[in-house]
């Protein structure tokens, strides 16, 4: 039963939400809404479990003095510190929690995001080689789009932004749509396998 119950729940929930899309009957709408609401409650509650997991896993490794234990101490101190500040002093404007969030968390995360610019540059340098005709077309197209999407492109040649826009809106979009259609059909087939109960890999069960 331990294995069948999750499949039954998945199949029944999937069908109810799907039927609600087509059938405006109150009983189906009510059940569908209840499932949606339960999902919201579960999602929120799962974060408590997540926090406990972070604490337990890191504490166990610090106790065992695993490699990298000092980093785990930092995690535990920050976790407990921020949670304590939030619970005791609140999280609104003017609180210590908010100050740390705005002045430590925000810049640190922005720094992580900004790494993207550096990594794009190094990846582009490594990958963009005119090895054959296709790679040459790829490189030239990339150059047009990169320049056309910034003011410099328009300053070099006024037609560059329009050319860039055309490349994005036609050849690139056609390829993207092909990918999206394929992926959407794949997702639909996977969803169908889920709601008829034949896809069980996500439960760790062999087919």
């Amino acid at each position: 039963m331990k294995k069948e119950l999750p499949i039954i729940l998945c199949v029944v929930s999937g069908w109810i939400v799907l039927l609600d899309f087509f059938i405006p009957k109150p009983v189906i709408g009510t059940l569908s809404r209840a499932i949606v609401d339960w999902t919201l409650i579960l999602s929120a509650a799962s974060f408590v479990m997540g926090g406990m997991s972070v604490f337990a896993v890191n504490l166990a490794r610090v106790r065992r003095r695993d490699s990298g234990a000092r980093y785990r101490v930092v995690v535990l101190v920050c976790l407990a510190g921020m949670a304590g500040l939030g619970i005791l002093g609140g999280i609104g404007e003017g609180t210590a929690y908010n100050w740390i969030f705005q002045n430590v968390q925000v810049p640190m995360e922005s720094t992580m995001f900004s790494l993207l610019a550096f990594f794009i540059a190094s990846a582009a340098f490594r990958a963009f080689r005119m090895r054959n005709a296709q790679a040459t077309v790829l490189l030239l197209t990339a150059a047009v789009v990169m320049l056309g999407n910034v003011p410099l492109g328009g300053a070099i040649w006024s037609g560059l932004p329009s050319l860039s826009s055309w490349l994005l809106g036609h050849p690139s979009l056609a390829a993207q749509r092909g990918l999206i259609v394929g992926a959407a059909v794949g997702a639909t087939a996977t969803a169908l396998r889920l709601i008829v109960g034949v896809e069980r890999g996500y439960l760790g069960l062999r087919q």
Partner: protein
Amino acid sequence: MNERVRRWIEAVSLLDRRFIFVAIAVAVVAPLLVPIGLPLRTSREAQALYDRVESLPERAVVVLGFDYDPSSMPELAPMTRAILDHLFRKNLRVIALTNYAQTGPIAERQLVEIAARFGRRPGVDFVNLGYKAGNETVILAVANDFRSAYPVDHRGIPTDSLPVMAGVHTWKDASLLIDIAHGATTDQYVRIAGARFGLPVGAGCTAVSIPRYYSYLQSGQLVGLLGGLQGAAEYERFIRKPGFASAGMDAQSMAHLAILILVAAGNAAFFLSRRR
């Protein structure tokens, strides 16, 4: 000569990635210190979003999705600020929400600061519904009722008691939804709020996500799009308030140029080494 070429090829081929990082840093920082003032061109999709907001009657309801976390703030906050400026100037009602746990306070700060410039009041002219766990499920839940999905706002005030929420129950009661996002939320809004409830959806996204939203633009499922810092700069131009995004466009131009120069150098070395 040959020896020099050989050395150059070797140097470029084995270029340490830290050199690339320094080159990009210089390309970004230098124009911020010494602005070049390159002329900015506006796009149709940004113009379309501005026009859509401009066409809304006073007190119409606009839902604004703050769907990014602090990491994407440098790229997405400027367009959020420009849009908020426009919304409050036009005296539209703003309902803000987010699918990211950390973004409630960020949204609150931006809303309060920009609303104050126009004398707009919390609860009356705007509300920050804050974060609700559940991603797509939350969007589905709002399709049933805003109040059941968000019984209280970010400040803990019951949603039902707020004048700004008067007559607003589901997606159908809003006039426009603008999702400023660095993830999948725009697709979800297009699928649920747009396709199922007929709510016009506009979007703001990071530059890297622009190509993916062109299909929605062409099919009319997105009424307008702001892409990255360029999109923000365009919106700043529409509202005639040049800000951070406009200042950053020179830096972005130079960064793109630096990448292209590096790629060109890499290819030159590649060709020379092949010939040798």
